């Protein structure tokens, strides 16, 4: 178990007129190497939750353990925790500040105490990973397009080589191509390096396509915590809290109602296609090459 949350509560602006309980008795276990999606409507406590995971916010009550150590212990090194749990904020491009892209990506590794050369190597690797053209490396980050800035900012966290990578709506405001690039990059990091990934998202399609476990937040509490199929089975309850199942799941429910024997648990287009093929032709398309 890499991160354990035990009855974490968090109250914003305590003892003022604007007091809000952002988290209520949240208990979670985040295992090594998992790919987790966190969904919930605006104000449900998602962003507050993830900021607890690297100690940026201190819980009002409750404890958090990282590899068995209480992160609120006096002798626990929070900076070391932040080195190992990388957090990419919403609109991370707003944090760029250096004169060149390369220097900006070096910022994290340098803070980790790496030498200039090592930090530079990390930066090169991270920038190559996010697919930024090499001729841009020594330009000002402020001259880039929105999508490119976003990738530079993500590279800034990747260069720190975290064990756990948390991304808060990394695709907000990007076009479909940019969105796929970022999510594919994250999925590749997860696959190749075996890092734990926590993805906060508003897109049910993205979550269904990439993650293996979904945490649904509602009014500061964990409402569901299960595999995507299981979670999206509760699509009526999800709708009640302002969320939804992936579009394709609705299609499958509709088809089922009209008498076609399809799998209503399908959450991605690929699964739906397989189920449809089987229902229509009786062939298990899983073994067919459908691209032809």
């Amino acid at each position, binding site marked *: 178990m890499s991160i354990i949350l035990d009855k974490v509560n968090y109250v914003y602006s305590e003892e003022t007129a604007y007091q809000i309980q952002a988290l209520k008795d949240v208990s979670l276990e985040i295992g090594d190497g998992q790919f987790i999606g966190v969904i919930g409507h605006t104000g449900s406590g998602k962003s507050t939750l993830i900021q607890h995971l690297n100690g940026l916010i201190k819980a009002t009550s409750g404890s958090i353990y990282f590899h068995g150590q209480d992160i609120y212990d006096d002798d626990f090194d929070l900076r070391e925790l932040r080195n190992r749990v990388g957090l990419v904020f919403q609109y991370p491009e707003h944090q760029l*500040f250096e004169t060149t892209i390369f220097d900006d990506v070096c910022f994290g590794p340098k803070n980790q105490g790496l030498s200039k050369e090592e930090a530079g190597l990390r930066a090169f690797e991270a920038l190559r990973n996010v697919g930024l053209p090499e001729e841009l490396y020594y330009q000002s980050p402020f001259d880039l397009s929105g999508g490119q800035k976003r990738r530079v900012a993500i590279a800034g966290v990747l260069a720190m080589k975290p064990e756990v990578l948390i991304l808060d709506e990394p695709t907000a405001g990007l076009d479909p191509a940019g969105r796929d690039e970022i999510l594919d990059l994250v999925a590749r990091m997860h696959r190749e390096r075996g890092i734990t990934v926590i993805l906060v998202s508003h897109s049910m399609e993205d979550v269904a396509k990439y993650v293996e476990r979904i945490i649904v937040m509602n009014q500061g509490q964990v409402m569901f915590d299960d595999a995507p199929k299981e979670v999206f089975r509760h699509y009526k309850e999800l709708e009640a809290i302002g969320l939804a199942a992936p579009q394709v799941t609705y299609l499958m429910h509709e088809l089922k109602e009209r008498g076609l024997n399809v799998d209503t648990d399908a959450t991605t287009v690929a699964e739906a296609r397989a189920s449809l093929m089987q229902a229509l032709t009786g062939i298990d398309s899983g073994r067919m090459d459908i691209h032809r």
Partner: protein
Amino acid sequence: MLRDITLGQYYPADSVIHKLDPRVKLFGTMIYIISLFCFRGIAALAIATVFMFVVIKLSKVPFKFMVKGLKAIMILMLITAAFNLFLTPGEELVSFWVFTITKEGLTNAVLMAIRLTYLILGTSVMTLTTTPNQLTDGLEKSLMPLSKIGIPVHAIAMMMSIALRFIPILIEETDKIMKAQMARGADFESGNLLKKVKNMIPLLVPLFVSAFRRADDLAMAMEARCYNGGEGRTKMKPLHYEGRDRLAYLVVLAYFVLILVCRIFLRWPQ
């Protein structure tokens, strides 16, 4: 962390004081402050105390919110009291080493502490019951006559309300960028002064970039809505004096007269 800083510390409640015209509260507070610095004698002090507590009670704002403002000036108050206590010449009470406490010094110190406390409490009542926007509205309307002599009152009021509006946004932005850089291992606390200043660069550059971006966006949005300044511009909620506002003026005036009467006829014990 930064979220705890309150500048416009408005406390929403449904009370008579909240509903008063902001101009009444502005002038009322001004008169109250003047009265604090010209009262004499214990009777006037009692009147000022009762007046303030009645207003606080009416405002329905919990007392602990009023007291919050006091913490900030605690040091100033202590210094003022100390200066008054030790540096006022007069009838000697106690004397040790180089310090001498006089009777006049003691009264001055106590009075100054009371005055400062009441001053903060009194202005807190105003800021807690009036939104910053209402206040600038009130100021704008009160200062309107100055536009006759070429002072751009509307523009100044508009700048003030924009500035006030942006304080919480920029605080939030600072908080966000700070956290984002801390997530990348930035350190804003340790090191000597020079190092600390240098460490602020990752915070200040993005903050300025975002402030300029927001200013640009706002200017664009205002132009898109055909904003063109003061002349002939109407308000969605124009300020009007109502019965309760006139009554409030009368009450404040009566209070002030009472204080003046006490100053002239009831000067005991001074």
